[in-house]
């Protein structure tokens, strides 16, 4: 019994160290999305480029990425070349978030437009329904319209290999 009493504080300390050590590699800005496993929210917005009405039914019928971006977002500009490259493998749908039409169109004219569709969401209504906290965010959606993954921040080679690819393999 005495022996246990001696070792108990050390055990508790070791458990705490375990938790703290894990905490070192966690990014507190990355929140689990409440929409994982949920269908893509219903929306009625317009296409930025054509001005035509867009609804959930017009979204791709194969696994695709939905990229939330805006012309005021610096990181979006950083990840843009990588998304352009990715768009050759799978459709990338744009969600232009809390932006103005002119600024968004100028941005695309300057940096290129790899997007299969461009949902124009100036008020951030669809962003709110998706639980978007800020741009950029990227969602992986399957062929049935179910959300499988949310990435907050830049999408690059490392994020693709570590997060997107493993999930993509399970839904293809």
């Amino acid at each position, binding site marked *: 019994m005495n022996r246990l009493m001696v070792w108990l504080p050390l055990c508790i300390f070791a458990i705490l160290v375990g938790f703290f050590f894990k905490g070192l590699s966690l990014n507190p*800005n990355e929140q*689990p999305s409440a929409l994982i496993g949920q269908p893509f929210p219903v929306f009625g917005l317009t296409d930025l480029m054509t001005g035509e009405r867009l609804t959930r039914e017009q979204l791709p019928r194969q696994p695709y990425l939905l990229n939330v971006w805006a012309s005021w977002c610096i990181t979006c500009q950083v990840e843009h070349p990588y998304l352009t490259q990715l768009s050759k493998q799978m459709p990338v749908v744009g969600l232009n978030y809390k932006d103005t039409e002119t600024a968004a169109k100028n941005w695309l004219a300057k940096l290129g437009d790899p997007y299969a569709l461009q949902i124009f969401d100036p008020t951030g209504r669809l962003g709110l329904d998706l639980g978007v906290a800020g741009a950029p965010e990227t969602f992986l959606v399957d062929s049935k319209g179910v959300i499988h993954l949310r990435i907050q921040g830049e999408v690059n080679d490392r994020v693709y290999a570590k997060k997107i690819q493993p999930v993509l393999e399970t839904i293809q």
Partner: protein
Amino acid sequence: MKKSILIACLLSVSLCLQAAIETYQFDSPEQEVRFRQLGYELRCPKCQNQAIGDSDAEISGDLRAEVYRMLKDGATDDEIKGFMVARYGRYVLYNPPLDKHTLILWFGPAVLLIFGGIFVGFRIRQSKKALEAGESQT
């Protein structure tokens, strides 16, 4: 003269500051109280340790506007919180409800306190015994 210019400058600054604060019109004082309360209980998804009520982040402004819109539509506090949780997860609740996911959060400290109390009691008893044993020897 200088003084009046200074006062004019200061006044213009204070007007600017006032313009940055959102003004919402409420139907009743109770509704305003509920709005403030929800502002304290909902957490800003972008800025870690701030409630949407005192955060200047863009998203907090959007969420406040949404809370306001829902209050005006006659939604209950639970409906508004449910709406936010469905989109931003449990993370947005500063006052987490008691359920199986939050058991450790609610009762963990009490359990630790009880164990600590038992431990301390045990040690005191032991040292007393040791002391008594020591005294009886001398």
